[in-house]
């Protein structure tokens, strides 16, 4: 494991835990504000990946942070603070995508556009579009674990804490997600690696 990255993650965790303690013990809105700023790029990036609807992101992120404010006293500090915050973001995200039905047929749209324009695309661009489209076609539980893995580099153990399921379930979901993405890319004519 990368030791520098691990040390940085550990010190971030200590800071986050101290802020959560201040929120829980003292209802310290300044601590919440600091936490809000620390998590904004990470959580909103994740939310944006899942919705593609920028109008919803602030509302969803505020929903996450309002829950942090109200439930900070329930945080037990046994898990990483980021896992706890993302477990809230995960639930907000689930609610949001149910409302949104955001999974549009991106690939169909892309292919139609390209066909109509007789557009010869660059091979690498096409592959990444295909992978992106395949990700968007995944079921929500599969999509979320793969996004948490690669957007925020969470380990399978941390994802299990965030999602609230056994680690083996996370591994199984990742396996199926990978298989579906690969199969989709192959079907659409993009050979794999």
């Amino acid at each position, binding site marked *: *494991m*990368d030791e520098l*990255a691990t040390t940085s993650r550990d010190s971030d965790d200590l800071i986050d835990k101290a802020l959560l303690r201040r929120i*829980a*013990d*003292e*209802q310290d*809105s300044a601590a*919440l*504000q600091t936490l*809000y*700023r620390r998590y*904004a*790029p990470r959580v*909103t*990036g994740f939310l*944006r*990946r899942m919705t593609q609807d*920028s109008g919803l*992101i*602030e509302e969803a*992120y*505020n929903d996450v*942070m*309002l829950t942090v*404010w109200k439930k900070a*006293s*329930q945080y037990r500090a046994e898990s990483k603070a980021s896992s706890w915050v993302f477990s809230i973001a995960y639930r907000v995200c689930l609610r949001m995508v149910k409302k949104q039905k955001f999974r549009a047929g991106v690939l169909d749209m892309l292919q139609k556009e390209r066909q109509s324009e007789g557009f010869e695309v660059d091979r690498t661009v096409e*592959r*990444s579009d295909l*992978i*992106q489209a395949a*990700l968007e076609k995944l079921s929500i539980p599969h999509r979320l674990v*793969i*996004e948490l*893995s*690669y*957007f925020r*580099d*969470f*380990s*399978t153990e941390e994802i299990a804490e965030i999602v609230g399921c056994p680690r*083996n379930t996370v*591994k199984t979901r*990742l*396996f199926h997600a*990978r298989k579906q*993405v*690969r199969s989709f890319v192959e079907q659409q004519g993009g050979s*794999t*690696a």
Partner: protein
Amino acid sequence: MSQSSQCRELEGNRFVNMSDPDQFKELEAMVTDYVNGRLDASNVQRFEAAMEHDEILHETVAFEREIKSVIATDRTAETQLPRFASLETKLDTRSRSSWLAGLRWGAPVAAAVMLAVVIGINWQQPVVHDDYQTLTDPVAPYSQPVLRIVLLEPLSAAQQTAFIEQFDVQVIAEYRSANTIDVVADTDVNFAALADTLRQDARIRLVRVLNESPE
């Protein structure tokens, strides 16, 4: 594509046999953690040794890295970050630090209780907050087992709230001059076990079970 059936010896007598579907499955389950650099050193060594001799595993890792690069590219995309001011107005900054807050009464219930107290209805035994009450004062006998807790130091209001939530208890009487509180369990727990847990807390000098029902 051929799946290697080669066996390799690693770290003493551990073998990776890629023709064994269970071992392959186990290694495949490590792919994500491997790509994210979240495997420990011994598993990295094991994984890389296996990958060296197995095309399928090698390809799986390569494809996984492609997926990661598609997702991670988006990290650099500009997003307008939300403003804290948009949340600040929604925060309830009223103090949750009284003992009563631990009881989690909603405002309407609290209002009803206050009314009941005012009109003299002994609807529920209220929390005793009499600074002059002492431990030797005759206290109405409790109809249920109660834990009397003597604290080393008085707890701040916020600490009290945290204490209540930590142990899932309700404070039914408080003797401020003696750093003592009487509590009942909020949930159905073994009273003796709860008393033992409380005794291990560094903030507590003494815990006694009052009105313990005979076994």
